[in-house]
C-alpha cells in the first residue's frame, strides 16, 4: 500500500552526490515528488529532504541503499506524522484585482499570507504552510482574481525527535582520527 514518505539524508558536500541519490529512486521506478538540498545545522554536512510516494517495504530498502553510498553519513525515512513540514508558495496576481475590491486583501489576511511585492501590473503574495494550505490558497485566488504565476518550494522538514538524529553519530565518528591527506 503506497503512502507519502520523507527521506532525510545527511552527507558530505561532494559534487555529483545528488545524482547518485536520485539514481536510486529512478532505478526502482519511484518518482520524486519534492527535493530540497542545503547545508544542515552541522558545519560541512549537507541535508537532503526527499518526498516520495511508495510502499513501506520499498522505502526501507531505498533508505538503506542511500546510506550505503560512500559520501552519505546517515539516511532516515519518516511518515508524515513523524515530521513537522513547511513549504513556501508565491502567487502572482494582477494588481487590478486588489484595486477593484477588498476580496483579495481579505483572503490574504484570513490565510496568514503576506504581500511581498507590488508593481503597477502585478502583486506577489507569499504564504508559508503545509501543502494542503498552500494549495487551498492557490485555488481560492484562482477563483477570485486569477493567478498570473504560481510556484512552490520543496518541503523543509524537522523531526519530532528532541535532537538532530545525526549529532550523536557524528560525535562517535569524529572521535576516530583519520589522518588522510
Amino acid at each position, binding site marked *: 500500500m503506497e503512502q507519502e514518505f520523507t527521506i532525510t539524508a545527511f552527507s558530505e558536500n561532494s559534487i555529483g552526490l545528488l545524482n547518485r541519490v536520485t539514481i536510486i529512486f529512478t532505478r526502482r521506478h519511484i518518482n520524486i515528488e519534492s527535493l530540497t538540498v542545503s547545508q544542515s545545522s552541522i558545519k560541512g554536512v549537507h541535508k537532503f529532504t526527499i518526498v516520495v510516494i511508495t510502499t513501506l517495504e520499498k522505502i526501507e530498502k531505498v533508505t*538503506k541503499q542511500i546510506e550505503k553510498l560512500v559520501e552519505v553519513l546517515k539516511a532516515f525515512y519518516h511518515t508524515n506524522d513523524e515530521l513537522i513540514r513547511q513549504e513556501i508558495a508565491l502567487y502572482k496576481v494582477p494588481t487590478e484585482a486588489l484595486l477593484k475590491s477588498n476580496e483579495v486583501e481579505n483572503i490574504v489576511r484570513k490565510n496568514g499570507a503576506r504581500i511581498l511585492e507590488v508593481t503597477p501590473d502585478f502583486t506577489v503574495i507569499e504564504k508559508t504552510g503545509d501543502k494542503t494550505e498552500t494549495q487551498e490558497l492557490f485555488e481560492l485566488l484562482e477563483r477570485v482574481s486569477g493567478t498570473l504565476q504560481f510556484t512552490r518550494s520543496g518541503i523543509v522538514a524537522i523531526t519530532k525527535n528532541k535532537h538532530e538524529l545525526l549529532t550523536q553519530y557524528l560525535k562517535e565518528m569524529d572521535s576516530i582520527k583519520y589522518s588522510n*591527506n
Partner: protein
Amino acid sequence: MEPAAIKNEQKAHKQENMKKVKGSEAVLLSLIEEGVEIMFGYPGGSIMPIYDALYDHQEKIKHILTRHEQGAAHAAQGYARATGKVGVCMATSGPGATNLITGIADAMLDSTPMVCITGQVGSLLLGTDAFQETDVIGITMPVTKWNFQVTKAADIPSAIAKAFYIARTGRPGPVLIDITKDAQFAETEFKYKKFEGIRSYIPVPKVDTEKIEDAANLIDKAKKPLALIGQGVILGGAEKEVIAFLEKSGIPFAWTLLGLSAIPTDHPLNVGMLGMHGNYGPNKLTNECDVLIGIGMRFDDRVTGDVKRYAKQAKVIHMEIDPAEINKNVKCSVAILGDVKETLPMLTQKVKTNLHHEWIHEFKKCMDIEIEKVITKDMYPEKPGLSMAEVIRRINENAKGEAIMVTDVGQHQMVAARYTKFNHTRSIVTSGGLGTMGFGLPAAIGAKLGMPGKQVIAIIGDGGFQMTIQELGTIFQTGVAVKIVILNNDFLGMVRQWQQLFFDKRYSSTELINPDFLMIAKGYCIDGQRVSKREDLDDAVKKMLDHNGPYLLEVKVEKEGNVFPMVPAGSSVSEIRLE
C-alpha cells in the same frame, strides 16, 4: 663526514621528499605505493601523459596492452578474482571509457575490487562536447562503488589512495578515477599517504554479539538446517572458518555460483550447487529445511526462484557484510552483520557439536535421482554427439582439481559450474550477476597473469568467444599460456534452450554460422586442435594441458543439448525440472 657535506646531503634528501613531479608521474608513483604489479589498458589521446610516465616504470609495473578496453576491464576482473588483489585497468576518454562500462558493471554486481583510471579532456573543455569527451563520471555512477574526477594534479595521490581503499574494503567493488589531461601535465609535490578511512563509510559493521547468540540457539534446535555458501566466504578469506563451523554443527552446505570452490568439492557436507541450474537436492530441500543460513551470499533471484515461495517454512539467518542486503530479497529472522571471517568463529564457539545424518541422507536420495535422470546421461552419453558434460569430465580427470576454471556465459558455464571438481579456493572465475558474454577469454588472461604457477583453463561457448575474440591478440603478444576450450554447438545455446522449452522451438536468431576457429587461432600463432569424436577427446585434453604455451581446443558438441536440472524463471525452487 664534514659539516658542509652533511648539510648538502640533508638538503638533497629534503628536496627528494619534496620533489615536484608531473601529475602523470604522480599517478604511477601512487600505483606503485599501492603495490600494483600488473595493469591492463589501452592508450589514447587523453591518457598519453600517463602512458609516457609508465614508460619509465616498466620494471615495476607491467602493463598489458589488450585489443579492446572491454578486454582490459575483464582481464582486471579475472586478475582480481584469481588473486584477491585489486585489479587495475586504464583507458582514454570518450569511447575508451565507455568501452570499460560492461566490465565495470560486471565487477559491481559480482563485488570485485577494481580501480579504473580514465583520461579526460582538459578541464577547460569539460561540458563543451569536446573531441572524445564523455561524462564518464555521470555514466558510471550507477555501476561504481565510488568515482571521482581529478582536475588538479595535487589531488592525484589522495584520490588514488581513497580509490584503492574503497575498492578493497568492506564489500569490494569497482572505483573509477577520471583524470583531466591538464592535471596529468601539471606539476605537484608528491607525498603519498595510505588512506585510513572516512566518517561516512563504514566498510565492516560492528558485530552484535546478541545476534550470534540468537543464531546459535536457532541452529542448535534445528532438525533440518541448511547452509548456503556464497562469495562472501572467499572475499573474506574465511574458508577455514566456514569449514570449522560446518564440521562442528554438522550442517550440510550448498554453494552459489560465486561460492564455488570455497570448500573442496569432495567435502562430505557438500550437497551441491544452488540456482537455476543447480542440483536437485539443494533446490528442492530448501523448501523443506527448518533453518536456512545464508553465509556471504545475497539471495539473488537465480538462487531463490520465485521469492514468494522461497523457504517460507524456515527461519533464515543471514550472515552478511552489507546492511543493505539484509531483508532486501529474503526476510530473515536473525541478521548477523559483519565480516564472516570474524563472525563465523564467534558462531562456531556458541553452537553445539551436532550431526544430521538422516537429513543429509535426504540430499543423497535426491542426488541419486539426479544421477539417474540427468548426470549419467550427461557424463556418459550413449548417442554419438559429444556432450558438454563429458568434456568437463575429461578435463576433471586430467586437471585433477588443481586448475583455475574460467568460464564465459551460457550453457557451457552452467555445465562447467555443475561438474568441475575443485580442490582450492579461488579456482573459478565466472560472470555471475551480470552474466556477460565475452567475459571468459580476457578474464582468463588476467587470471593466468595473476597466478602464473596455476593451469588456467577457459571454457567458452562459440557465441561468447566471438564477443571478445580480439583478445587472442593479447595472448599472442604476451605469450600467456591460457588453455582455451571452445564448446561449439553452432548455437547461442542457452537462449536456444529457452526457445525450445518456452517458445515452441522458434529459433529466432540463435543459430550461428561459425568460422574456422582453429584457422583464426593459427593466424595468432596459437596452436590447437578440433575434436568431434569421443575417442579423440581424452588425448586432446592431455595434449592441451601438456602444451607449452597457449592452446585452443575446439570441441564440436551436440547442437541441441539442454542443461538440466532447471528452475524455470518465476517458478518456485520446489518446481525444479529434471527434464
